[in-house]
């Protein structure tokens, strides 16, 4: 027998704000839907350990999709006439479109970095239709990552974006895992990481929205690594302080990409958060 993993990948056409998008998603498991959002300039491969974790997949239907422009999801028609710029509204519409197309009933939405940010807005806007959110490296406001040189014709964007994000890992995380994330980052299309951090650094501000989250209706677990300098522990602490009932965990020896940089050490934290959702 071939040594297959239990992950299955598929393509789905979904209308986002009235425009069809061909989306790639991968999933494993059965149970409560767990929709996973990758980081800026990356794709759903970051969730391969979570998708292969039997404890998780015995309890959750885990789904990770590539955002339009990322991984194996296409950009929309006429993309060559578009400067890619993610926005809060567009990001939210994409998540909602995939969620509805798949008919997910009271899912848990889990996201990291820009995904960990937007789950706060998902919770604020859709708290009656969710079981909860798990925010990895979540900030309600996160300026400072945008940089003009991230997309420049005289610079290898893949190598710059991958190196620019490499130090966001904890120095103590296994080198092979940190390098794996480097590899994923090196593969994003021109300007895609920059377009994502344009949202994250310049458009994103949910400091008022999060005050409306009622954790009796939508559970909230926030986990941030101590070495994260994009979303620092202090930034997540500020978000958690504005959401009564949210659980907050600062993960020792962890950086900005827990699910891929060091799954072994992340797993106990993750399982505690997921148990809160069951």
């Amino acid at each position, binding site marked *: 027998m071939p040594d297959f993993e239990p992950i299955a990948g598929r393509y789905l056409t979904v209308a986002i704000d009235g425009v069809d998008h061909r989306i790639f998603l991968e999933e494993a498991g059965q149970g409560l839907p767990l929709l996973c959002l990758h980081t800026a300039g990356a794709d759903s491969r970051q969730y391969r350990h979570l998708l292969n974790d039997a404890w998780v997949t015995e309890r959750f239907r885990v789904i990770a999709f590539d955002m339009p422009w990322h991984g194996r999801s296409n950009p929309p028609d006429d993309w060559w006439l578009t400067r890619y710029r993610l926005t809060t509204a567009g990001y939210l519409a994409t998540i909602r479109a995939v969620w509805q197309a798949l008919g997910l009933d009271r899912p848990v939405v889990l996201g990291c970095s820009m995904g960990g940010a937007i789950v706060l807005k998902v919770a604020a806007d859709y708290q009656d239709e969710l079981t909860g959110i798990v925010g990895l490296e979540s900030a309600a406001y996160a300026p400072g990552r945008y940089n003009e040189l991230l997309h420049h014709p005289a*610079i*290898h964007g893949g190598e*710059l974006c*991958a190196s620019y994000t490499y*130090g966001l890992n904890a*120095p103590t995380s296994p080198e092979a895992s940190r390098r794996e994330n480097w590899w994923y980052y090196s593969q994003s299309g021109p300007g895609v990481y920059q377009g994502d951090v344009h949202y994250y650094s310049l458009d994103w501000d949910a400091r008022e929205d999060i005050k409306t989250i009622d954790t009796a209706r939508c559970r909230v677990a926030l986990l941030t690594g101590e070495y994260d300098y*994009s979303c620092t522990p202090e930034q997540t602490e500020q978000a958690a302080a504005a959401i009564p009932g949210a659980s907050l965990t600062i993960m020792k020896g962890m950086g900005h990409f827990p699910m891929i940089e060091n799954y072994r050490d992340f797993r106990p934290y993750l399982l505690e958060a997921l148990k809160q959702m069951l």
Partner: protein
Amino acid sequence: MSAEAGPYPGPDWMERYRSRVNADRELGIIGRWFTATFMLTFGENRHAVKVVEGRIAEIVAAPRFDVRATFGFRAPVEVWAKFLSPNPPPLYHDFFAMLMRVPAFVLEGDSLAAMQNARALHRMMNIMRETGAPDA
């Protein structure tokens, strides 16, 4: 780091650093296009690092103005000491982290040239950490 100990990080450390860079397998693969002179400034103590195809050909201590550099990194000694410590505190563990969060750590000169070499430069700066703390 006392005054009696001499300038930080000291010539022995700089030589160990150069040897380590020049023996690095990864830079042997990715360094081919990295040819530039960059400055490392520890407090008032400047070094010009002359890189040819990913190897350090020469480190000039206290260079005069006839040594031209394309870009450089400058920070107070106490910032470098955190970066080079065995267990660097968060925000001091990576040069990109310091560029974002440690205002006293600066990239001087032509940042385009620096970022054109981001991969090899990042590796070279991480080898500073692998060289060990200068006081050790």
